[in-house]
C-alpha cells in the first residue's frame, strides 16, 4: 500500500466514470478516447507533459467543454455532456490553473460566493435584508468562517484578493471551492509556482480536506514528488491519449510513462 495517510477514510465505490471521451477544437484533438474512473474519497491525480490535455479533461468533467464523443457518469447518472451549473449543484467544485478569483472582491466575499447554491432567498428579500435573506447571510457566514479557520485565512479575511500574494490567492481559491461543501473537488495545479514551504502547506490542506470532509479529489500536478506522495491512483495523459493508469508505483514502472517523461523513442 502506498497510501500512508488517510487511515480514517475508506475508499468507496466509483462515483465518477468517464468513458471514451474525445474532444476536438476545430482540427486539433485535445483528448482522444479517454476512459478512467474515480472512487469515492480517493485522491486521483492526472499527470502528463505540457499540452497533454489535463486541464481539458477537468473542463470536460465539470461541463466547461463539451466533448464530441463519450459519456460521463456521475453518481450513476450517465451524461453525454455535463452542464456547468448541474455539476456545481451535484457537488463538483474546482480551482483553476491561472487563479480565477473575483479580483474586485474581498477574501470573505470570494469565499461567500462559494455558498451561493445554499442561498434560497430572492434578490428582493435581500434588498430588504429581511427574514430569510438576513438569516441565510449569517448562517452561511458562519460556515465560511469555519473554512477560513480551516485554511488559516483569518488575517486576510477582509483584504481585497488583488492585494494578496500568489500562494494565499491559491488558498483562497481552495477555500471558495470548499465553501460549496463539494463531494468532489477538481484541483488544477494547486501547487504550481509555489516554493517548498507553500507546497507543503497546500499538500497538508489537500490531505486534511480529503481526510476530514471525505472529499473526493481529482488533481492535476506537475510536481512528481507531491503526486506520488499524496495520490491513491494516477492517470497519465500524453498528447491527449491515456498512456497509464494505476497506483503511483505501477505508473512509475510503466514503460510508456517513462518514455513520455524522458522523451526517449
Amino acid at each position, binding site marked *: 500500500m502506498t497510501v500512508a495517510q488517510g487511515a480514517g477514510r475508506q475508499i468507496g465505490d466509483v462515483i465518477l466514470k468517464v468513458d471514451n471521451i474525445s474532444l476536438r477544437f476545430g482540427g486539433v484533438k485535445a483528448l482522444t478516447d479517454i476512459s478512467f474512473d474515480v472512487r469515492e474519497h480517493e485522491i486521483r491525480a492526472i499527470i502528463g507533459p505540457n499540452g497533454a490535455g489535463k486541464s481539458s479533461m477537468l*473542463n470536460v468533467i465539470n461541463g*466547461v467543454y463539451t466533448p464530441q464523443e463519450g459519456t460521463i457518469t456521475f453518481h450513476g447518472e450517465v451524461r453525454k455532456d455535463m452542464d456547468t451549473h448541474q455539476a456545481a449543484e451535484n457537488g463538483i467544485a474546482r480551482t*483553476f490553473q491561472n487563479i*480565477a478569483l473575483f479580483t474586485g472582491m474581498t477574501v470573505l466575499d470570494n469565499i461567500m460566493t462559494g455558498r451561493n447554491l445554499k442561498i434560497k432567498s430572492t434578490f428582493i428579500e435581500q434588498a430588504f435584508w429581511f427574514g430569510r435573506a438576513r438569516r441565510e447571510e449569517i448562517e452561511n457566514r458562519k460556515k465560511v468562517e469555519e473554512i477560513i479557520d480551516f485554511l488559516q485565512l483569518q488575517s486576510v479575511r477582509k483584504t481585497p484578493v488583488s492585494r494578496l500574494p500568489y500562494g494565499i490567492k491559491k488558498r483562497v481559491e481552495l477555500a471558495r471551492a470548499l465553501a460549496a461543501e463539494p463531494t468532489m473537488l477538481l484541483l488544477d495545479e494547486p501547487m504550481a509556482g509555489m516554493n517548498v514551504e507553500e507546497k507543503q502547506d497546500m499538500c497538508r490542506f489537500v490531505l486534511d480536506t480529503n481526510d476530514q470532509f471525505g472529499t473526493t479529489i481529482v488533481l492535476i500536478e506537475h510536481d512528481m514528488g507531491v503526486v506520488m506522495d499524496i495520490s491513491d491512483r494516477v492517470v497519465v495523459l500524453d498528447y491527449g491519449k491515456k498512456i497509464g493508469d494505476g497506483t503511483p508505483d505501477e505508473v512509475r514502472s510503466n514503460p510508456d510513462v517513462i518514455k513520455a517523461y524522458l522523451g526517449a523513442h
Partner: protein
Amino acid sequence: MDIEALKYFATVLAAGLLTGVMYALVALGFVMIYKASGVFNFAQGAMVFFAALTVAGISDKFGVSLWIAVPIGVVVMIVLGFLIERIVLRPLVNQHEITLFMATIGLTFFIEGLAQLLWGSTVRTLDLGIQDVPFKWLIDRTGILISQFDLIAAGICGLLVAALALLFNKTKIGRALRAVADDHQAALTVGIPLHYVWGVVWAVAGFVALVAGLLWGSRNGVQFSLTFVALKALPVLILGGFTSVPGAIVGGLIIGATEKLAEVYIGPFVGGGIEGWFPYVLALLFLLVRPEGLFGEKIIRRI
C-alpha cells in the same frame, strides 16, 4: 414595377451609397486606431467636427483662402493626434478596453468644447468650390439623380483609401504599423518605437477626420451635428469588423444604402426618423449571426 419607380429606387440607392462613402471614411479612422492600439476611439466624430471647424474658422476669421487654411488644418490635426497619444493614451496603456473607450468619450467632450471655445458655436459654411448639383450627364442618359458633389466626394475617398493602402503596404512606417497591429510586445522586442507608431496612427486618423470633415462640412455646413457621424460609424464597424479596412468600406456602403432605403420605403409607415436607430438594429441582428463582422478576425476566448 414600372420604370419610374425603378429610377427612383436607383436614385435613393445611389444617394445612400454615397452617404455610405462618408460613413466609411469616418469608420476608416476608427479601424486604424483600433487595429494599431486596441482603442475604440469614440472621439473620431469630435475630431471630424474639430477639423472642419478649425479650417472654416481660420478661413473665416483671418479671411485667408482654403489653400492656406487646409494645410494649417492638416498640421493642427497631426499635432492633435500626437498630443492625444502622449497625454491620454500613453498613461492608459494596458488598461481594459472599456476603460480606454470611456477615456475617448471624455476626449469627445473635451474636443467638442475646445472646438467651440476657439471658433464659436455658430454654423459656418465651407465652400470647396464643388457645386452640389445633380450630375447632368447621368440624369440626361438614365434619369437617375446623383449629386455631382457626392460623386467627387466618393472619388476623393477612393483616392484617400488608395493612399492609405500605399502608406501601410509600401513604406517603412507602414510596415512598423502592421507589426504593431499584429502584436505590440513582439513589435517592441524587435525595436519598433511603439509610441511613435501610435502617434503616427492618431495623426493619420486626424488627417482622415479632416478630409471627412471638409467633405461633410461643405455639404451640410460645419455644425455640431458633424459629431453624430461617429454614432453612425459604430454600426458600420460592427458590420464590417473592427479590424478590417475593406470591412469599414463595405460596411459603410451597406449602412448608408440600407438606412436611406429603410427611411424612404419603411419610414412613412412608422412615422419616419428611423435613420437614427435602423443601422444599429441591422448591425445587431448581424452581430447575432456573425459576431466577428464581415471581415473581422475571429475572436477566440480562452480560459
